[in-house]
């Protein structure tokens, strides 16, 4: 897909950047249109990532892996009490 191509081909054409930017503008309009009157809700718009397609953005910037974390319970406090 586009993200793999992005990773491999390096510098992107002006057309590709323009297309990604246009897609970003549409996405901003959609995201901001759903809850316009909710106070202090997030605002979405142009920033340093607007020239990337979402897949490209994810391929570079969203690279954290997860594994199952145990559910928090009171043992955290006991764990602390055992700390030297």
């Amino acid at each position: 897909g586009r993200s793999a191509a992005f990773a491999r081909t390096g510098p992107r054409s002006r057309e590709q950047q323009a297309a990604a930017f246009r897609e970003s503008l549409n996405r901003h309009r959609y995201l901001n249109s759903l809850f316009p009157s909710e106070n202090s809700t997030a605002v979405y718009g142009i920033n340093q990532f607007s020239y990337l397609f979402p897949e490209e953005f994810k391929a570079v910037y969203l690279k954290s892996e997860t594994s199952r974390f145990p559910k928090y319970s009171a043992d955290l406090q006991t764990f602390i009490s055992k700390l030297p």
Partner: protein
Amino acid sequence: LPLRFDWRDKHVVTQVRNQQMCGGCWAFSVVGAVESAYAIKGKPLEDLSVQQVIDCSYNNYGCNGGSTLNALNWLNKTQVKLVRDSEYPFKAQNGLCLYFADTHSGFSIKGYSAHDFSDQEDEMAKALLTFGPLVGIVDAVSWQDYLGGIIQHHCSSGEANHAIIITGFDKTGSTPYWIVRNSWGSSWGVDGYAHVKMGDNTCGIADFVSAVFV
């Protein structure tokens, strides 16, 4: 719990950094938590080396991605001492691990905890007050377009993919929110930070939470 708390007010949180085109958010978040943990203990607040974690942490893939848990486990198991950023600066690409003599000054950890706080965000707030800034992993797909305000929609807890640091919370308004430090530079979001709604695990912010002990 106070209505509002932010470790930045205690001057124990370093400046926002920029991971550039490196997928090393997992390393930035863990190093940031270690920096703050030592500052809370009274040590001078200083930038520690993210590049060291990217190059040396086993079971991780450097700028190609990694896990906060594996990084914490590596720090704890090996008792490696993180050196200052000025001694091992960030270069936004993978490199060979540089080793320092045992006599070299650095900052190791005594332990860490890693828990799922979903449905228990008040307990998570207590952990934040107790241990210092917390490492978290969120689904940040919609953060690509974020400019400011409180993220409360378009951010599911489905697939966590980005590591951040939670430095505080603010319950004074109608929508309580977590104060979250990112690693995309200070021009992104609210001076490099995001505000994420508190209380219903928005973005999965309570699913993968770690604390560092020093």
